[in-house]
């Protein structure tokens, strides 16, 4: 007996929702960033699930590229956070309102 594909999709949907809650409620920029990584990973889980169930390699290639982009995104994003911390001495996104109209 094999696991129905729905189980994986629901787990992925749950992790994505938790990631959204993290992005919307946390005020620490680094934790917001980690929640984005969680959402990326839940999308990866969906891709891998379909790739495995359909027997198609393309989904796993896509996950590979998502990982590459996530690494680049983490490097640049954390550099931006460091630069902001240098200037404002905080990573609380409530106090970073430079671009607020």
């Amino acid at each position, binding site marked *: 007996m*094999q*696991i129905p*594909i*729905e*189980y*994986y999709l629901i*787990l992925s*949907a*749950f*992790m*994505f*929702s*938790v*990631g*959204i*809650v*993290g992005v*919307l*409620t*946390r*005020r*620490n920029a*680094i*934790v917001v960033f*980690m929640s984005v*990584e*969680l959402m990326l*990973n839940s999308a*990866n*889980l969906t891709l*891998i*699930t379909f*790739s*495995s*169930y359909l*027997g198609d*390699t393309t989904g*796993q*290639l896509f*996950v*590979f*590229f998502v*990982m*590459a*982009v*996530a*690494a*680049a995104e*983490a*490097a*640049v994003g*954390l*550099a*931006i*956070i*460091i*630069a902001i911390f240098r200037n404002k001495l*905080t*990573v*609380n996104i409530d106090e970073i309102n430079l671009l607020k109209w």
Partner: protein
Amino acid sequence: MSLELILFIIFGSICAVTAVLMVTRPNPIISALFLVLNFAALAGLYLILNAQFIAVAQVIVYAGAIMVFFLFVIMLLNPAKENRFLEHKAKLKIFTVVVVALVLVQLIYMIFLAHPSGTITKEVANSVNAGTIESIGREMFTNYVLPFEAAGYLLLAATIGALVLAKKKFE
């Protein structure tokens, strides 16, 4: 219960619980460590799904490189501890959770409405074949060689960009 299902329940519950803990812990270091555990459990799920190469890459790239990077930045910045989850602006946060729970219910409803297990059944031989490093490498260096090279340039650009951004104060 098959072994596959037992492993799915173990790794899946670790994934779900650590995701929730990661979002609710006030200390960012503890959040980061729970995220590492979450990524490790995800690698386990990838192994159940016969995606061996991606499982290894997940542990090396995500749980290894990216999370160490996060921990380094947390250590450098030493951000102040946040309030506990429901201490500050509790009503707004509960409202957020309710809205997101509605979205989740909608997603699950759509998943059951589409009923993918009715049309998609796993053929183990194809599934194992799709996850080997051989088939991934063959695809990557034939059909997807251009995106592969582009990813290399993207990483180079990100490295240089990170150096430039973190180097000096803005004028």
